């Protein structure tokens, strides 16, 4: 959904977010909803600036959200409040699951397929009944495990064209999704929610009733979330639970309904769409992986990653068009359109493993552009120490941020042992360059250049272009096969203007895409082909620049509602995704009050207030035929077209590594034994048992206080964009930790008095803000204190202070490796005691380079051994595989 649509919600729940604090401008739409009579609920460990605007604030312990949301699922089912017609038509409630599947109720918190030695799940038992290809006989030509030179065409393991899912429309089958869901959440009663979360059963039921009363045909409700939900070892499952709630209530794809993901930077949405992520290619195409032998070929990659039914059956066209844009004439049918040139990942290369690789001297050089890991990285001390291992390091930023001068960190006593050569290349600010932002509702908005930069400041466009040109010269004439990919790259940009940099509009044209032969811009991704005749940088953005001189990101025509004339939202300028679901299976709006997109029988097409998220002329009455594949496999009432069965997934048969259904696990660091299951934590969470990262055991009395981290309106992230601006620093000048009066009394800490906060990893000194906006919880009969600290401070800037990120451990969600920064444990004592406490901490990161020559040789030979092993066994292991070489 889009932020402006919040004004149409009848109830808004802000959870895992402090929206008024962190998205103050977007929050105006919540205020508009309230003006129209909507109920606003804020669920958060603290009473914040968002709570001040809400009708009800419910305090819950950090890290207990799945229990609360699972409680909502149970309430909805038990009280029969689910939107029946919607659930029947638009969700997979009736789909029957494999008889091999066993869930958390049977396995005390685990799911079937868990391998405790490998700490991972084999997920085949989670599939829909009868949809998996029978296992091939070993040695057969189509054996997918037969090594790189597999004979015969690659076949997908799941192909609904030949093995479609089975359903029970009566929802009675014991293995249909609805019954599995019901059993899974049966113990998430209001009393259980109270035990796990610390709120009262009455508070919980008040929320549940309000939400249910505001959902259905005539009313819709929305959730708004941010990193309070994502930064957990079960972060992805948090969001899954909310989507189950919203699918059961029929809020997805409806006006004023759905889930709004509040992203944390002006263009971070853009940075995942056109990604700087190791596992994604532009437009959310999965990056090829060396761990999957099917990814050796383009055909294999398509078979392995692209469903054969639903919209993603078009995936090959997007991949070929992308390759054509990147490799131009060097992409031919003979070389699989240049697929061979793409680098393949050999493991998890996200932030934490990347810094571990630096620490282990595997990564020698690093370019850090617009980021501040020395202060903003989780376990920031570890990040700083890792950078000390680099040979060379380029920093591009507006200020000499902590990362740019990481050797000046207070915990690095003697920088003279650091051999890193650091280059600081000053960048322009946003107003000194032109380009686009993609905001939290997928909308591109262009920004013009307001002023020319001064001195040596240059834009990222300038930097990347000139870096490419110089590297290209250096690689010229090389016959090394390893350099072929770089030499094959196209570079369609020319430099212009006083800054001698490429025009951002030229980049936008590549992103939009054109016909290969004559560079006519593509109008929509419907026109993209897999025969090399189209080239396209980012298929989801196609349509932003559909003709020469036309830049829809620059459009500024607003209206009272969807404002389709303002900016360009991907895909195809749709503002609300899956809006087919705003009409019933016959194509009529569920109610007049919630009319959004509907089928026009006269014009024989979908019309409405938004661009329909559906094939324009596919009638509601059209029948699906699985054998035909693609969109023809789905009938006219399947709204969730990106799923291979066209349904909203209450149960996820594939795609996640830690379970088809969310279960409450305690955070990795907690003071509480999991009241719901014997399985204490996410059994497949990513952990790093390394020096400088000692974890706190569950219930360790030395660290009894639950702590969360958060933002203040006055500051931004780790400080580069706010702690250098006096107009902002005067508003919030000092680091502090917020504690309840009850905790303050126990610890003898006064308001604005100094205290020391510490974990096994680090100790920081800061002042305390004593406030009733925090309170102690009773969890499973135990009194547990909750504290909170903003994470904006570090040692560089107009104002400086203790860094909350130093305290956090490296532990992450296994699906996307996001760190757990929102729920961990600590100890707090009165007074400035950092020096004396540091001396007692069991596992401080030693700040100096640890790896001497002997360790370096050992690491290098371990890698050689690993490659040899892989060649012997006939397959590569991912670098983070327990059997793999590199425990990154």
């Amino acid at each position: 959904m889009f932020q402006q649509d919040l004004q149409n919600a009848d109830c808004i729940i802000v959870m895992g977010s402090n929206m008024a604090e962190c998205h103050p401008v977007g929050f105006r739409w919540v205020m508009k909803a309230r003006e129209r009579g909507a109920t606003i609920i804020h669920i958060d460990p603290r009473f914040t600036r968002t709570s001040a605007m809400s009708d009800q604030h419910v305090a819950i312990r950090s890290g207990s959200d799945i229990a609360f949301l699972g409680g909502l699922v149970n309430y909805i089912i038990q009280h029969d409040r689910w939107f029946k017609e919607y659930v029947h038509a638009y969700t997979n409630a009736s789909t029957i699951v494999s008889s091999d599947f066993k869930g958390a109720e049977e396995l005390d918190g685990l799911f079937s397929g868990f391998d405790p030695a490998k700490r991972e799940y084999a997920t085949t038992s989670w599939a829909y009944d009868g949809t998996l290809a029978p296992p091939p006989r070993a040695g057969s030509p189509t054996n997918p495990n037969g090594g790189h030179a597999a004979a015969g065409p690659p076949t997908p393991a799941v192909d609904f064209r030949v093995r479609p899912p089975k359903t029970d429309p009566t929802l009675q089958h014991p293995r249909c999704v609805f019954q599995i869901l019901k059993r899974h959440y049966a113990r998430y009663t209001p009393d259980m929610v109270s035990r796990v979360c610390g709120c009262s059963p009455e508070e919980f039921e008040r929320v549940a009733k309000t939400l249910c009363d505001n959902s259905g045909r005539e009313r819709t409700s929305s959730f708004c979330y941010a990193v309070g939900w994502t930064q957990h070892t079960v972060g992805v499952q948090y969001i899954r639970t909310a989507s189950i709630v919203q699918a059961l209530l029929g809020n997805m794809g409806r006006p004023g309904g759905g889930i709004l993901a509040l992203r944390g930077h002006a263009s971070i949405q853009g940075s995942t769409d056109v990604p700087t992520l190791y596992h994604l290619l532009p437009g959310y195409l999965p990056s090829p992986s060396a761990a999957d032998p099917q990814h050796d070929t383009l055909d294999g990659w398509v078979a392995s990653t692209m469903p054969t039914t639903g919209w993603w059956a078009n995936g090959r066209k997007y991949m070929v068009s992308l390759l054509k844009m990147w490799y131009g004439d060097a992409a031919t049918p003979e070389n699989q359109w240049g697929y061979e040139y793409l680098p393949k990942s050999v493991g998890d290369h996200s932030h934490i493993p990347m810094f571990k690789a630096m620490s282990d001297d595997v990564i020698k050089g690093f370019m850090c552009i617009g980021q501040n890991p020395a202060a903003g990285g989780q376990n920031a001390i570890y990040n700083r120490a890792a950078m000390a291992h680099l040979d060379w390091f380029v920093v591009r930023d507006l200020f000499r941020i902590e990362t740019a001068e990481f050797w000046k960190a207070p915990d690095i006593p003697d920088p003279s042992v650091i051999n890193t050569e650091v280059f600081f290349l000053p960048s322009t600010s946003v107003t000194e360059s032109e380009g686009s932002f993609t905001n939290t509702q997928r909308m591109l908005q262009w920004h013009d250049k307001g002023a020319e930069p001064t001195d040596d400041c240059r834009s990222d466009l300038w930097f990347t272009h000139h870096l490419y040109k110089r590297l290209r010269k250096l690689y010229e004439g090389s016959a090394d096969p390893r350099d072929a990919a770089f030499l094959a790259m196209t570079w369609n940009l020319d430099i212009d203007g006083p800054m001698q940099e490429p025009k951002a509009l030229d980049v936008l044209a590549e992103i939009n895409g054109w016909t290969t032969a004559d560079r006519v811009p593509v109008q929509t991704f419907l026109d993209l082909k897999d025969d090399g005749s189209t080239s396209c940088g980012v298929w989801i953005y196609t349509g932003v620049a559909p003709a020469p001189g036309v830049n829809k990101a620059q459009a500024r025509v607003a209206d009272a509602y969807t404002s389709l004339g303002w900016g360009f939202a991907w895909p195809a300028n749709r503002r609300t995704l899956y809006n087919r679901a705003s009409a019933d299976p016959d194509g009529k709006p569920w109610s007049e009050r919630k009319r959004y997109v509907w089928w026009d029988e006269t014009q024989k097409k979908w019309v409405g207030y938004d661009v329909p998220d559906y094939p324009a002329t596919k009638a509601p009455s059209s029948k699906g035929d699985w054998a035909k594949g693609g969109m023809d496999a789905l009938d006219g009432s399947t709204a969730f077209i990106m799923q291979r069965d066209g349904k909203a997934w209450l149960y996820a048969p594939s795609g996640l590594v830690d379970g088809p259904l969310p279960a409450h696990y305690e955070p990795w660091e907690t003071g509480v034994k999991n009241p719901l299951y014997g399985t204490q934590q996410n059994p497949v969470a990513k952990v790093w048992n390394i020096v400088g990262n000692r974890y706190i055991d569950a219930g360790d009395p030395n660290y009894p206080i639950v702590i969360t981290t958060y933002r203040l309106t006055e500051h931004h992230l780790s400080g580069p964009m706010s702690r250098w601006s006096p107009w902002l620093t005067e508003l919030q000048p000092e680091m502090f930790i917020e504690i309840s009066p009850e905790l303050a009394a126990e610890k003898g800490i006064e308001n604005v008095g100094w205290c020391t906060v510490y974990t096994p990893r680090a100790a920081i000194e800061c002042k305390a803000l004593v406030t009733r906006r925090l309170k102690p919880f009773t969890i499973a009969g135990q009194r547990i204190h909750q504290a909170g600290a903003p994470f904006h401070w570090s040692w560089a800037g107009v104002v400086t202070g203790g860094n909350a990120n130093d305290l956090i451990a490296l532990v992450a969600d296994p699906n996307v490796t996001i760190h757990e920064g929102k729920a961990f444990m600590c100890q707090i004592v009165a007074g400035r005691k950092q020096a004396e406490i540091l001396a007692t901490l069991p596992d401080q990161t030693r700040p100096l380079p640890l790896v001497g020559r002997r360790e370096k040789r050992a690491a290098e030979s371990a890698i050689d051994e690993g490659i040899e092993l892989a060649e012997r066994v006939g397959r590569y292991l991912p670098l983070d595989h327990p059997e793999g070489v590199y425990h990154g």
Partner: protein
Amino acid sequence: MAKGFYTDTTACIGCKACQVACHQWNDIPAAEGGRTELSGDSYDNTQTLSAENWRHVKFIEQINEDRTQEGFLQGSRWLMMSDVCKHCVHAACLEVCPTGAIIRTEFDSVFIQQDACNGCRACVAACPFGVVDIGRDGKAHKCTMCYDRLQNGREPACAQACPTESIRFGDIPDLMALADARVAQLQAQHINAYVYGKSDIVGGLNAFYVLVDEPHVYGLPEKPELASKNVDEGFALSGVAAAALAVTGLVSFRKSRMDEKAAAEAEDHP
């Protein structure tokens, strides 16, 4: 047509964009070079209006001990209010200014002309809201209602920056109608809301508020008074005193004359 601010404090999220926009537009430097101190007073580290802070957001935590909340602004709550010069209809600062530096503009706002101010501080003492302050340059400073922006057809910087339209700028009668409607809406939800700044407050405030608690909770005076409040009474009492002095003087003179006469007669007839 009088123009001014209507601030609905129930829509304030305490973001302080108003404070920053004011500093930026008027090019006022941050206090202490930006290195102020944590006050401990909720999220308010500015603490007071001053020569350098012409907008100041106040935070009032009213969380009860058992942390219960019955509804919006009922039970536990956190009040936020962006304080500013009230641009009073009867402005005490304007009344007492000896040089005529303080004037009423064509927008009915109260403006201190810097070149005519001699730093005498009469206005600082007179203002019942504690708004005016002497700056480093020895002159009196306060919110100008962005006079320069108004003269160019723009609204004040704070009103433009406010993301939730808590601060609204416009014609006073229109704004007052909005405020009355908002008060009615809140009272229907059993919230004790009212407008602070109708004519009962120093003749009316051209920067008025919808509040939900007593004025003193927000640090505002219940019944602010003008410096000139005692003037009429003072004149009258002076008149009475003058009359009393005159009568006493006359009586005393007559008595003295009578005594003289009596003494002269006694000399003549021993």
